[in-house]
């Protein structure tokens, strides 16, 4: 009973915070925003810890039904929350990492005006609520509600600087692509309802064993559309780099740690479906791998530090998709956790740099920050090494688990191994672009174009979350050590096993060879970037292969292709409809009514001649007419 209330409180607190900030936005002082904005998220974190403790003690999942929402004939839809290992895991990430980021934002957004400041935290709290609803949902309706609300929060926050045209366009782009995913989700819900006559997770999963495999495949693909859109994988990925228009804490929270991982969560939560729909699952893995490689290649030529991190996120989520796509769910979620740590760390540290340099994001104007922003540089370095997958940081462990599990998956085809090869190549590229990022920004000499001569280190409220995330990145990896090394403990896998099951296959004996190779070559690539970009010893390969450079700079021309295929036709249809239908009909009709009324009134006003004698004449004529009518009536 208390647990049920705790789960509800966990969910509702951020919403209450958002509501309070929305209502009080114009009158609330700064300190109140500091209390409410991060406060509700930390309170939600405490509730999550309570649920976590209970999960360890009781070791069972809870399906809490709060009331029956829809009752229609034989169909019942309860308003239920599913509190099991997986949802608690996600809630920890959302509220924990989210709390750190929102606390950071207290300092980062300090230059905003008071209403804007409150608006930011209102939207952030709204986002936290939406994400919690998504992961705690016990039925498809709540899931889709959370899904859509997360998209809304993302739109609001990307377009936070609404007076900037580029921000508004980016927000709209993100929202439209998210809606494509929403349609996939809704169609999947329709298919589920038609086939299983239930929309709760428990009901659907129970009905799966006797289900028709074709329909399950279709449902799997439709859900995959939603996951791909939300997690910015190929081919619905173009919105994520533009989403960097939002403030840096937004990029950290939504577009690194939580929202974009919703797709991974979806596949994990729907694993009973995907265990049957093997084609859909394989497609997920393929999409993940290809996206990982493609995004990593684009990241090599990006000059905006946040875009590098955005493509890096896309790439790492590709790894997660790869993992859950082959069935290594625990690996995927471990990488999700680790990625949340180091990617949030990287974004927040980058935010420190951006904040110190008055909003400059172009890495070519950085350089030499090691001397002036020591703490940030160190934290950023640790984050970068983790991203590259250097021992003993969490990135090493999680990436190693993913690649190892993929490598070791048995099967008749060598499909997993082919995907592993793509992942391996991606890892090397990851090292390269990450190294480039760190060397260009922090090493070498200060660029001549740097906007601020002597940047200050960040304030304490901005440094502490970064430091916490650094510590987590450093030591967080030790909770899951893959068996490839030695019979290690697998805390993550064991934790999630009641929901996701254990890994069905064991590691191959030679798994440590690819692991070592990945580690080595990644590190080499990291160092090699120095020679390319800082000491300029080796000619930048961009000069050697200009066409390839252009291809990468244009992000494989995806934006241009989508523009031609979808945006322009829609524009033409819209303006055509405007010309032929909206203007004549929708504007013409009221105008026409007005004109007709005026004409009628004008005509009628002619009867008001102003002459007394005509009025009398009309009276008399009227009397005559009335008398005639009376006569006729009486006659008949």
């Amino acid at each position, binding site marked *: 009973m208390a647990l049920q209330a705790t789960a509800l409180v966990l969910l509702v607190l951020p919403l209450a915070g958002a509501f309070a900030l929305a209502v009080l936005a114009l009158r609330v002082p700064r300190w109140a925003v500091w209390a409410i904005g991060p406060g509700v998220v930390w309170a939600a974190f405490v509730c999550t810890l309570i649920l976590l403790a209970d999960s360890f003690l009781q070791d069972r999942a809870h399906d809490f039904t709060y009331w029956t929402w829809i009752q229609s004939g034989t169909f019942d839809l309860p308003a239920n929350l599913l509190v099991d290992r997986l949802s608690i895991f996600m809630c920890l990430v959302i509220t924990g990492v989210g709390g750190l980021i929102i606390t950071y934002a207290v300092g980062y957004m300090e230059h905003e005006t008071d209403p804007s400041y409150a608006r930011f935290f209102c939207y952030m709290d709204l986002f936290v609520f939406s994400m919690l609803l998504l992961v705690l949902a016990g039925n498809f309706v709540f899931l889709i509600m959370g899904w859509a609300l997360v998209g809304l929060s993302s739109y609001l926050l990307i377009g936070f600087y609404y007076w900037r045209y580029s921000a508004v366009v980016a927000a709209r782009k993100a929202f439209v692509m998210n809606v494509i995913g929403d349609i996939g989700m809704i169609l999947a819900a329709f298919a589920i309802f038609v086939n299983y006559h239930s929309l709760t997770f428990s009901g659907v999963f129970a009905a799966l064993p006797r289900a028709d495999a074709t329909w399950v495949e279709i449902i799997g693909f439709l859900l995959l559309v939603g996951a791909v859109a939300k997690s910015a994988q190929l081919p619905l990925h173009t919105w994520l780099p533009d989403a960097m228009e939002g403030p840096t804490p937004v990029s950290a929270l939504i577009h690194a740690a939580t929202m974009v991982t919703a797709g991974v969560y979806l596949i994990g939560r729907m694993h009973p479906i995907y265990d049957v729909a093997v084609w859909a699952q394989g497609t997920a893995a393929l999409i993940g791998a290809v996206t990982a490689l493609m995004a990593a290649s684009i990241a090599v030529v990006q000059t905006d530090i946040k875009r590098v991190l955005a493509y890096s996120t896309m790439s790492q989520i590709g790894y997660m998709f790869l993992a859950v796509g082959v069935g290594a769910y625990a690996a995927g979620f471990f990488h999700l956790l680790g990625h949340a740590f180091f990617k949030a760390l990287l974004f927040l540290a980058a935010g420190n740099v951006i904040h110190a340099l008055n909003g400059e994001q172009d890495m070519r104007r950085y350089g030499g920050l090691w001397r002036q922003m020591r703490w940030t540089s160190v934290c950023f370095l640790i984050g970068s090494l983790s991203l590259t997958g250097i021992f003993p940081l969490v990135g090493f462990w999680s990436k190693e688990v993913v690649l190892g599990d993929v490598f070791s998956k048995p099967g008749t085809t060598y499909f997993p191994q082919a995907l592993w090869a793509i992942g391996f190549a991606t890892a090397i590229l990851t090292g390269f672009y990450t190294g480039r990022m760190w060397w260009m920004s922090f090493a070498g000499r200060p660029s001549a174009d740097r906007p601020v001569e002597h940047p200050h280190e960040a304030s304490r409220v901005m440094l502490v979350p970064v430091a916490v995330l650094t510590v987590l990145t450093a030591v967080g990896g030790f909770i899951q050590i893959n068996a490839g090394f030695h019979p290690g403990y697998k805390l993550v896998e064991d934790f999630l096993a009641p929901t996701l099951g254990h890994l069905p296959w064991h590691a191959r004996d030679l798994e440590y060879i690819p692991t070592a190779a990945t580690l080595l070559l990644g590190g080499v690539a990291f160092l090699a970037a120095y020679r390319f970009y800082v000491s300029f010893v080796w000619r930048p390969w961009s000069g050697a292969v200009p066409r390839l450079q252009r291809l990468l700079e244009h992000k494989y021309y995806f934006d241009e292709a989508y523009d031609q295929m979808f945006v322009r036709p829609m524009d033409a249809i819209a303006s055509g409809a405007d010309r032929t239908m909206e203007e004549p009909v929708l504007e013409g009709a009221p105008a026409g009514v007005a004109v007709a009324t005026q004409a009628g009134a004008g005509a009628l006003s002619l009867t008001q001649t102003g002459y007394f004698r005509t009025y009398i004449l009309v009276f008399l004529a009227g009397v005559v007419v009335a008398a*005639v009518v009376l006569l006729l009536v009486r006659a008949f």
Partner: protein
Amino acid sequence: MSLPQVVFWVMAVVAVLGGLGVVAFRRPINSVLSLVAVMLALSVIFLELSAQFVFAVQVIVYAGAVMVLFLFVVALLGPVRERSTGRVPFHRGVAAVVVLAFAGLLIAFITSAGIRFRAPEQASLAVFGTVQQIGAGLFTTYLYPFELTSILLLVAAVGAIYLSRGGQAASEVRGRELRGPGAAPATDANEKEDRRA
């Protein structure tokens, strides 16, 4: 012919001639006097029709007070020219048509083809039309109309007083109201340009 019928015919002739005089005389004073003649003739006919009280009221109030009021106004306004400004074309023709139609209707109503009289109600001939009976009717059954008529008279009196408030300032104000904002004082020249196209 009996005496009542003779009296009626004489009075009818007087009335018709008076009516013609009302319509035909150029000078308004003559029209008003013709109307007085009509009223007196009608009052005699009322008397013949057992409407004693109405006869008295017609003579005293209508012919005696209202017509005197008309005479006062005629005297006040002085000689008035009557000139056509030709603003409403075809008025005479249409008016003729309508009036003829109306006349035709009335004739149709009145001739034995049109009208069917009902039997008279039983009422005491001795007191019919007497002051007592009229008083009884006015103050019992028809009290509401009586009272409303009183209020109407009050309203008319108040209105007349307001409208005819004397003094230069009042008439100037009302003159401005009548002429409209920003208009020049009324003269014949101004009236001519008021003509509609």
